[in-house]
């Protein structure tokens, strides 16, 4: 069995499993290009989207993926739910499970919340972003985009730029990229690099120009503006001046450098506005691939590994 039950993070996920998810996602991307972009694959399955943190693109992406797979879905957001009445996560989920659901997609501000869930329920748990820990489907869609644009991930030099310490996107990317054989670097102010970052055996830059010269791909992370208030950076202005990706800086880069961003962007801070819309940017490809990758994850985690080919062929 290549596919494990849950997707809690990419740490420890095998190369085989990631490859299968990416391959499956390619097939689903073809489905999405059809006139009627919908398959009955998950008909009769019920998926709950638990979003304890505001999110637009990730939630829409998961919801869309579920609709494209004909699953029934329920959406739960923290505001206005029983959470406000003081119900624990455990009770919330026990209640949901009593309603016989098959899968839970969870976004939560606490690192490890999906692991907690997985311990308490029988359904498959998909992590849609937990605190500062992991955001595995984001990294999978990043991998898919790289594979599309550069054919193979092995040997590719990918630099993650910005607030590494607080970024779940960074962690998932580091694990996923390394498993798939890419070289990884991080670049950011020292106050935004986590303690013992060296453990990942990656390149570490604190000068953006060094990272740009090194990289085939820049994955630019969102700067949370509250980092200034909490004393981690002197000012957003200085951050933008030192670490913002601009056309001028890219003069030193290889010509075909790719620019990625998990969104939502702070235009003019971590990335120059028109650069985000330039030919180097693959930011919207990432979004498109997000739906396909999430379809693949939902499908495979619901036990669809074996019947994959036949289902897709029957629908074609």
């Amino acid at each position, binding site marked *: 069995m290549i596919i494990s039950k849950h997707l809690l993070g990419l740490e420890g996920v095998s190369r085989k499993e990631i490859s299968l998810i990416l391959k499956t996602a390619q097939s689903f991307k073809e489905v999405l290009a059809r006139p009627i972009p919908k398959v009955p694959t998950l008909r009769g399955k019920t998926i709950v989207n638990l979003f304890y943190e505001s999110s637009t693109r990730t939630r829409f992406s998961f919801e869309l993926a579920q609709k494209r797979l004909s699953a029934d879905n329920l959406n739960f957001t923290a505001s206005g739910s029983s959470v406000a009445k003081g119900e624990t996560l455990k009770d919330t989920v026990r209640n949901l499970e009593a309603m016989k659901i098959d899968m839970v997609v969870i976004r939560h501000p606490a*690192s490890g919340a999906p692991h907690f869930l997985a311990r308490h329920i029988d359904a498959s748990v998909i992590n849609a972003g937990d605190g500062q820990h992991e955001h595995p489907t984001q990294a999978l869609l990043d991998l898919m985009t790289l594979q599309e644009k550069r054919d193979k991930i092995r040997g590719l030099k990918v630099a993650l730029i910005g607030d590494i310490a607080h970024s779940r996107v960074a962690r998932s990317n580091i694990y996923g990229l390394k498993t798939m054989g890419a070289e990884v670097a991080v670049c950011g102010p020292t106050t935004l690099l986590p303690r013992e970052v060296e453990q990942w055996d990656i390149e570490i830059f604190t000068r953006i120009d060094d990272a740009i010269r090194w990289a085939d791909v820049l994955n630019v992370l969102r700067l949370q503006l509250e980092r200034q208030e909490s004393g981690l950076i002197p000012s957003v202005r200085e951050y933008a001046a030192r670490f913002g990706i601009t056309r001028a800086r890219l003069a030193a880069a290889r010509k075909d450098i790719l620019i990625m961003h998990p969104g939502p962007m702070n235009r003019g801070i971590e990335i120059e506005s028109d650069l985000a819309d330039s030919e180097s940017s693959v930011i919207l490809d990432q979004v498109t691939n997000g739906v396909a990758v999430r379809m693949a994850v939902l499908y495979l985690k619901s036990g669809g590994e074996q019947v994959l080919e036949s289902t897709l062929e029957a629908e074609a």
Partner: protein
Amino acid sequence: MERLVRGKKAENLLIKGAMLIDPASKLEKRGDILIEKGKIVRLGRIAKAPNGLEVIDARELVVTPGWLDMHVHFRQPGREDEETVESGASAAAAGGFTAACPMPNTTPAADTREVIEFLIEEGKKTLIEVFPIAAATKGRAGKELSEMADLVEAGAVAFSDDGCAIATASLARRAMEYANMFDVPIIEHAEESTLCVSGAMNEGKYSTRLGLAGMPTVAEDIIVARDILLAEYTGAHVHIAHISSAQSIELVRQAKAKGLRVSCEVAPHHFTLTDEAVNDYDTNAKMNPPLRSQRDVEAVLEGLQDGAIDVIATDHAPHSPHEKDVEFAAAPFGIIGLETALGLIITRLVKTGVLSLSEAVAKVTVHPRRILKLPPVTLQEGQFANLTFFSPERRWSVSKNSFYSKCRNSPFIGWELTGKVYGVYNKRQLWINQDF
């Protein structure tokens, strides 16, 4: 269902063939103890016992002076659902302790004569002695000193704002100066809070991997350094609670070499586990100070060995399951420790050769009593019998259902330990562990 340790009246008793260990009097030999009217009347070989006397065949057992845990949380007043003096005393006795020092972070805080007297009175109903530690500042709020003179008179044996450090250097200084009038120590929870904002675990390799906010060792070290300097400046006695960082241990070692009145304790989990235990977001691996790195654990073992660390104290911290069974960041800090301490001490320190049995026993008997200026408890003729009985060889499994504490928040459930409590004798009463 709640279980309670209830002593059985045993004015007179003969303990036969035990290994007697009393670090204070350098006693370590096999022998018998004859107890009459609660007092040790004879020690050594007792060939002929008076008729009808209750006899304990102790050939498998070590008998030591009753153990003292100088750092527990009995949650009373305020959280009687989690622990009371009665249930905590049961857990203590079941763990081989005949005395315990409850910390003042209750609701209300133990910062008035009434609360201290209440705790002592509650303790009198149990098999153990309760020596309360009072809050150093009113409400542990770090603003004004508590009424220390009154509190000492009521029976407080030390002062601490445990749960957090005494908030400012100036207040810590005044607390030391004032407490020094009564010759009682300030017990410091060493944590510079501004370095631990929303921290949930040790800062390092694992916090980075798990995406949890860190509590760096330097936050502990800064307060340890501050308090050592203040101890030198004021001449007061500072005791560092639950020391966990290699650097802090080194600071204490240096302070001792300088002849300062500085002492410290370590909790069994800090010599047993590292922060790797948090790996699956197990909230029973969440405590404050947090589990540290392998390097820190090695420093703890070294400190225990060379005497930099004086005391082993459990930081027994019961938490109800519904509060602990939540996302990691939301869970409270702390684990129960009274009933696994002896097993962990034997398994992790004695069997591994870090400490001799006698050295280990000193850290739960004579050392904490000396630090708290309590009357010595020894194995000597004429003394009231206050005894801990255990087998240093017997193996047992820690099970969820074995605890006398009201709570079950232990990372050691399922562990196999060597060293098991047989019973205790105190206040003319005997309790024998039926699960021995």
